């Protein structure tokens, strides 16, 4: 393991924060305290965290409907995130987006996205802006195995290849597009194989091994920063919860889930880091406690935030527009 202590600590800190956040959201949702519906990231933490460990606040990511993990990995404050899930005025999107559109442009987080395959063209745009403005920023495009079959994803990888855009496509292959297995919906044997069509590097990594993800992303991000163009990383992973909260997950067996839980990415990384002396057990315990207290504080923040006024629905459609026309 090549990780420095700081990086290792940051990685574990973020992974455990995502885990605690998502498990709390599952509980709050079951209690009926969160409107709408949510897609949880627990189980996939190593992907978002392993990739984002290579990014700065100036870099961009586009996300998916399962976006909480990406947000936390990119540094979005859990307080406003939780407030957004509650639909409150202090939410990241003032209660107008909710779980599926949670965003923080100031952190380079260009939004969770309710459209499967909605993000890849946007990622190309952010990368194009960086390229045109010469900012050296990189954009990471997270997408699921379901989105791998959208035309937008293919078009985006092609145009990124044509324009040599500083973008890293990260396919989070959790095995199922909703309830449909990747072996059915993907004609190729791996999603990474698609890269050859666009003459860009494509690798498949163990998405349960945060270090493997980190190392693959480091190479792709460096390539993008150099101006050598895009890459595709396929990270094979597993979601602990259903497609959405309430999904009975009848398409997976208990044995499959138990096997993945055995190899939990957080436990695996913690064990490795402690064994190799990069982190101490007390570091792990402290990070776990910090995650709980951070999420406790986030829930308190969210619940304390006022509800929006109904007519707040009429703002933020445009930068400038006659208000009467928005109303009618």
């Amino acid at each position, binding site marked *: 393991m090549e990780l420095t202590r700081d990086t290792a600590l940051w990685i574990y800190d973020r992974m455990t924060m995502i885990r605690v956040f998502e498990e709390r959201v599952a509980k709050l949702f079951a209690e009926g305290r969160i409107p709408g519906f949510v897609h949880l990231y627990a189980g996939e933490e190593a992907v978002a965290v392993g990739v984002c460990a290579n990014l700065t606040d100036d870099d*961009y990511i586009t996300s998916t409907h399962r976006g909480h993990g990406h947000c936390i990995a990119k540094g979005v404050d859990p307080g406003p995130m939780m407030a957004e899930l509650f639909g409150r005025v202090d939410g990241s999107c003032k209660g107008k987006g909710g779980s599926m559109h949670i965003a923080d442009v100031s952190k380079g987080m260009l939004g969770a996205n309710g459209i499967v395959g909605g993000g890849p*063209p946007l990622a190309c*745009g952010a990368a194009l*802006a960086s390229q045109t*403005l010469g900012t050296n920023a990189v954009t990471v495009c997270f997408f699921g195995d379901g989105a791998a079959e959208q035309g*937008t994803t293919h078009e985006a990888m092609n145009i990124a290849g044509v*324009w040599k855009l500083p973008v890293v496509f990260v396919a989070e292959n959790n095995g199922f597009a909703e309830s449909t297995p990747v072996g059915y919906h993907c004609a190729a044997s791996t999603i990474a194989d698609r890269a050859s069509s666009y003459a860009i590097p494509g690798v498949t990594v163990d998405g349960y091994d945060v270090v493997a993800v980190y190392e693959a992303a480091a190479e792709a991000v460096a390539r993008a920063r150099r101006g050598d163009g895009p890459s595709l990383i396929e990270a094979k992973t597993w979601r602990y919860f259903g497609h959405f909260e309430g999904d009975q997950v009848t398409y997976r067996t208990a044995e499959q889930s138990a096997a993945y839980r055995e190899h939990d990415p957080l436990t695996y990384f913690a064990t490795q880091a402690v064994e190799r002396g990069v982190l101490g057990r007390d570091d792990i315990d402290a990070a776990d406690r910090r995650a709980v207290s951070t999420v406790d504080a986030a829930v308190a923040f969210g619940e304390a935030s006022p509800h929006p006024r109904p007519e707040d629905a009429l703002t*933020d*459609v445009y930068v400038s527009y006659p208000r009467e026309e928005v109303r009618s």
Partner: protein
Amino acid sequence: MTLVSEAPSTTRTLSMRQAINEALRLEMERDATVILMGEDVAGGATVPGFEQDDAWGGVLGVTKGLVQEFGRRRVLDTPISESAYIGAAVGAAATGLRPVAELMFVDFFGVCMDQIFNQGAKLRYMFGGKAKVPLVIRTMIGAGMGAAGQHSGCHYSVFTHMPGLKTVVPSTPADAKGLLAASIRDDDPVLFFEHKLMYDVTGEVPEGECVVPLGVADVKREGDAATVVAMGRMVSFALDAAERLAGDGVQIEVVDPRTLSPLDSDTLLASVHKTGRLVVVDEDNPRCSMATDIAAMVAMQAFDSLDAPPQLVTAPHTPVPFAPEMENFYIPSVERIVAAVRATL
């Protein structure tokens, strides 16, 4: 280009094509974050000899000459991947550029609607106002070229329906220049609809920077007998109808909304209050359209000023046909406008 000696020194005669090209050039000179992107906006990318030159300059030559001045980093030919480059334009707009993307024909919105409608239009709102999308999508509209079902529609009503988008339909070269400048400077996504049969229409256009604000209608001809609201190419048809009716002593008022979203309902209503009669001329299909929208707005807000039911002169509820006889039948005619006005008198 012919300079008309009688014209004031601050204007000269330009075609619609030249006026749009000039607006793009001026805005790109003014703001380095303005870029053009689209299929063949320069053309001939990577072909030897075209490194700093354009093969086409747009399929109808509207962007010709811009790559020479601004280079291929700012005049981007794209693959025929409307989803990818329209979506990229949205993403770039949200992260610091002011892209002017060209969707060659509006009919192609079918292949990239998600990026316009679910991403570009809604992004600011879904983010609670914490992002902006200063994007312009230029697109060609209109029947009359024998281009048939997939290259001839207007469809601006579809986009006017969508919250978060602004829609602009210029009817003169001067308006096109001023409205395009305003659209590029606007911080919201703007769909800019150019009628393909109007590129060679000429008119007086101010020199230098000029901006026509969005959301301000223009009374193209004053009259008191009836209000004829027309947009795009239909404005010139309405003005022809006005000439014919004037021969019979009927003076109609021709109002061009210029932008459909936002809509300058005040100017439209003021005219209807004056005339008591409304005819809407719209080359778009009739159902859930600008024509019905304006008629409904007037019925609701100017009911007590109406002396006759509003009349709509629109395309039929069909795709655009190919054969010239049928295509001419499809397009609203001056005769139909005259008849509709007479029906209100």
